[in-house]
């Protein structure tokens, strides 16, 4: 019965280490995703900095990714404990809006690093999709999406499945922006050089690092990680002359929040230097307000696309299903 006793002890330890209900400080519950809240994400810093000024406790609840975040909120509906949703990406904003769970953020939108005029979803970081390659192995990356699609002997790429991953969906939209109604034919031409579609960003990036593909779909900011954390400069983003697809992450206030005052303070905090300076080397994206100390050195040599491609969230909502079905039949041909 030693084992049983051990199990009970361990169980008790877990249960009692859950946050006690008798806390005196108010608790702000922020739903986000695990890459953001984890040890290496900006989450721990942001929690520490917000708690230093709010005399409250910030509690992270992490989901797998942006899509799962919206899924969780949709399931919980008005019973959700969330005060803030942090990490809803641009491609699911129309669907998020349609839930009716969110209220206007009330923040001024001038002076942001990107053009934005949504009264409900407040951006906290942004960037562009890009193909990352290893310059030691691939000397001449394609200079455009068209070149990538139309070079039968071109580099092999690993992509994310647009049904399960946000970057994957972004690339599907990117193809639509460049090829319009001819996107399916372009997919057929690209297909021989697609190594595989992975479930999420991390599997694809892992496969690329292990040498499975010459290029991987990621963000223009990915090289900054390798420069900063690994002191490697051989990982680069390939600039495409049609322009790059936009990625924006936003936060929003829940209508049902039991802590509306605290939640509003957090929304305002999102644009502060304390929050924004944790973004570049935490989430490896561009902050929406350049921190007082400027961007870190690892961001200095990144490519900055001049042309931005994007569908509006409403267009994405109206067309996503059709785009995916048409991709599915094109790629299964």
């Amino acid at each position: 019965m030693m084992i049983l006793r051990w199990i009970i002890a361990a169980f008790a330890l877990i249960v009692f280490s859950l946050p006690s209900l008798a806390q005196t400080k108010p608790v702000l519950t922020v739903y986000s995703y695990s890459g953001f809240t984890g040890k290496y994400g900006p989450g721990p810093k942001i929690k520490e900095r917000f708690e230093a000024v709010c005399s409250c406790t910030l509690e992270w609840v992490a989901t797998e990714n942006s899509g799962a975040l919206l899924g969780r909120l949709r399931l919980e509906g008005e019973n959700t404990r969330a005060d803030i949703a942090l990490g809803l990406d641009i491609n699911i904003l129309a669907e998020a809006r349609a839930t009716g769970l969110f209220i206007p953020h009330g923040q001024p939108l001038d002076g942001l690093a990107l053009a934005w005029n949504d009264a409900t979803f407040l951006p906290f970081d942004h960037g562009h999709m890009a193909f990352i390659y290893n310059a030691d192995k691939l000397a001449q990356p394609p200079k455009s999406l068209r070149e990538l699609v139309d070079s039968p002997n071109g580099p092999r790429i690993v992509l994310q499945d647009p049904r399960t991953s946000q970057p994957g969906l972004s690339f599907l939209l990117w193809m639509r922006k460049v090829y319009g109604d001819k996107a399916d034919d372009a997919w057929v031409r690209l297909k021989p050089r697609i190594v595989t579609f992975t479930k999420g960003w991390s599997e694809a990036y892992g496969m690329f690092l292990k040498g499975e593909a010459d290029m991987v779909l990621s963000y223009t900011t990915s090289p900054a990680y390798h420069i900063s954390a690994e002191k490697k400069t051989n990982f680069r983003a390939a600039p495409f002359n049609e322009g790059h697809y936009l990625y924006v992450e936003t936060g929003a206030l829940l209508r049902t929040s039991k802590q509306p005052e605290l939640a509003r303070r957090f929304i305002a905090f999102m644009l502060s230097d304390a929050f924004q300076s944790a973004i570049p080397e935490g989430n490896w994206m561009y902050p929406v307000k350049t921190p007082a100390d400027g961007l870190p050195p690892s961001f200095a040599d990144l490519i900055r696309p001049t042309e931005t491609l994007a569908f509006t969230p409403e267009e994405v909502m109206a067309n996503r299903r059709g785009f995916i079905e048409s991709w599915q039949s094109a790629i299964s041909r």
Partner: protein
Amino acid sequence: MAGAAALPHPGLIAAGLLAALIMAALAGLASAGGTATLMPGPYLWGVVRGAASQAALSTVLSLLLGTALALALTRRSSFPGRRLLMAVMTAATVAPTIVIIFGLVAMFGRSAPLPALAASLGLTLPAIYGLHGIVLAHVVMNAPLVARVLMAAVAATPAEQTRLGQMLRFNPLDCLRHLDGPVIRREWPGLAAFIFLLCFTSFAVVLSLGGGPANATLEVAIYQALKLDVDFARAAGIALLQIMLSLAFVLAFSAIGARLPDAPGQARGQTRPDAGSRLLFWIDGAVIACAMLLIAPVVLSVLSGLGQLPSLVGADVARAALTSAVLAAIAAALAVLLALLLASAAEAAPLGRASPGRARLVELAVLALLGLPPFALVTGLFVLLRGTGSVSGIGLVLVPLINALMALPFVYRLLAPPLRQSAERHGRLSTSLGLSGVAHLRIVAWPALRRPLMAALALAAALSMGDFGVIALFGGGDLVTLPYLMAERMGAYRLDEAGAIALVLVASATALTFLADRA
């Protein structure tokens, strides 16, 4: 006993509760919104056809390799790495799938040694992505299961038969025909059903190695309905279809005599009459080498995490390890408890009124549990429980529960046969002595069950420790397990640390099964 007869057997109550839980979860899911379509369209039927042929191929290959390996290891009983090889291979069946996937990619991928070797010989190996990649991964994951079950079954053949074979100077072919053949014929249908369902409902392997949407399973369609279309009713509909099909497959397999494959017994340490054959020596050597080649990439890929182990030292890893251990312990205890209840309900029949039909029914129902769609179940239960407590709190209950259900078919396979044997051998004596309840358990059942119980606990714990699908829905905040942490590290570019966590997971699973085998 007259008073007790009014109450149904607790095992039947448990079975009823489980069925109710599953149906309630699906109903809860269907009520969460979306458009219910009871008749699957052409897309879904296409998925079913594709998944069924993929599963059939995976099953046939797993059976062939697993059987060859079982026979080879049985004949080479003096092969020194036998135990360790089996423990490592069992760990492969329960490791998080991402570990298997990266292992295979490291060996058979584009920049891996094997295709390079083939290229230097002027051959081109097909890329690992596609149907063959899925099948390869499934063989790596399931052939060890076949080998384990068959080794135990062959070892349990009465020593008299082996001795008779020696006296009659059986040649290797006679051995196969008269000694191993009957065992294989008996075990194959059940094993086939088991593996077929595992492959038919495969998820992460199909998504990562499938190479595109042409390869899919219903599990992928459920995930798509839940995550992409956010059409809960559709997800519930597909989940129901998968459960129905699983039941149908189980019934179809049962027509060719499928039952849960029997497991353990004691190795008798008999020298087999065919152990001296030169030809078999080389064949067995080749089979064992082939098995090692299959498992090597996973082991090597996992071992590459060794250098990063120091980076794991930290409060969050320690806490995740503890959480993993606690959840796995609860899930394992729950799975074993359920298996014992169900198995004893299946065997419990008043003297003189034996009902083999009931035992068979329970067995088939447990087998069909392999077709349970975890995402749909978890989401459905979440819908039912929302608003009743914190997500971590609900997760603390649901994660072990669903993991226990997922492990139940494995555990039942290990526990039911010895329980049946003990009932057959000692049931009458025990009843005539008036032993019942706890006394019966302590004196009659326990000695026969101790070993299988340990093995079952270890396997169930290892299985739920490797779970990512269920924890992904509830993780975060207070409920972080090792696989969850692994995914988080991967999402933050920290592939090396993720590799070190994988090493910890696989090493724990190997240690658990290794120790349970010796218990």
